[in-house]
């Protein structure tokens, strides 16, 4: 009877007051164009990986801005680094560079925390 009864749901609310935005500041410095994303979704629409998985590049940007690194790590592994997204971005975001750098930063962060 494992599924019987009630449990307490974990809150979904992002709490900016106790989130750590230090990785975001590093990325703002390393891939300056990252800041310019407006979430238009052109990258996601041209993405080859998105045809077969629920991968969305602008969502990666948004997750990173909101310091949701746990979810992001899985997302980033879906990218094949083909670079089509960089060709279509109207804001000139270096999306490919951004994804690579996000992977590096999250990896480093994980090692530091271990």
């Amino acid at each position, binding site marked *: 009877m494992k599924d019987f009864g009630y449990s307490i749901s974990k809150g*979904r*609310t*992002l*709490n*900016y*007051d106790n989130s750590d935005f230090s990785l975001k500041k590093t990325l*703002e410095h390393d891939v*300056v*164009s990252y*800041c*310019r994303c*407006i*979430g238009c979704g052109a990258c996601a629409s041209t993405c080859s990986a998105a045809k077969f998985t629920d991968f969305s590049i*602008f*969502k990666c940007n*948004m*997750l990173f*801005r*909101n310091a949701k690194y746990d979810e992001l790590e899985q997302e980033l592994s879906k990218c094949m680094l083909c670079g089509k997204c960089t060709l279509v971005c109207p*804001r000139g975001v270096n999306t490919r560079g951004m994804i690579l750098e996000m992977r590096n930063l999250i990896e480093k962060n994980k090692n530091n925390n271990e």
Partner: protein
Amino acid sequence: MNHFDVIIIGGGPAGMQAAIRLGNFNYKTLIIEKEKSIGGKLTQWDKLFPDFYSAEELLQNLTRQLNENVSILTEQEVKDIENTSENEWTVKTADGQYSSKALLIASGYDFFNAKRKEEFGYGIYPNVITSVELEAMIKNGKITTLDGRIPQKIAYLQCVGSRDEKVGNHYCSINCCICAVKQSIEVKELLPDVEQYCFYMDLRMAGQHYEELYRTSQEKYHVQFIRGRISEAASTFDNRIQIKAENTLLSTPLKLTVDLFVLMVGMEASETTRFISQKFNISNEYGFLQSKQRYCSDNETEIKGLFLAGTCKRPMTIPKSLKDGDAAANAIFDYLKNR
């Protein structure tokens, strides 16, 4: 001598620009202004978007161009206007009565009263301020909370009093989006360590160089634009403001505590504009004045000799108000010449 060729009600940018032209056309012109000095809302502003041109310099430029044909009455509120006979207008103020052949309304706008949006806490919590109050702080070069602290986090909320059915204003006020971008850049220059969040429904950068300034604010000043409308604000025990919103690009709710919460207030028809629109029955659905026809006679009205310029018609930027003042002066020139 109380008779003029043209009386202009309102000495803001549109009224001043029209007066410059009418003066140059050699028409005896009178500006009636209810405040202590002419300049309208320009007197409350420090720098203008998107090029940070000084509002004071613009005001000086305009004042310098007014010639001897233009008289100015300040601190005179219009009490009544009458179309006494064909081609004759009489304007009554508390102190006197003035008449003219043509009447130009340039009575402008007022800022939306943010207290009407109680959920944002303006007038209840001291650190909830309007964009007008922030501009005054920028002008003084000192940005602090009401209790004298240097703010570390500031949030801006767009569309307060605009695009909001709940206050009866469906329209967009045009200026606020880019104004928040401008102000956030100025604030960051004064307080390099500040973190800034701008909450929006849509960002409307519909002017030359607006989009470029928006990019700059993201890239160089690291202002964070979050798509989502703040639903409510509450005070913490130490007078900071806690806000709740949905990050709609992530479909996730968020909460955030800031030191200053800035409401980007929209534009509404001013009291004088409302009075005139009702008096002559030329009000649009929001109390602004309705011109004869939007495309080819936007400065004329259905009433002979009554002309309109600037934000008494609808929200406008300052350059547009100035051009509209020019256009109104030309329309009046044609009218007086053919009379």
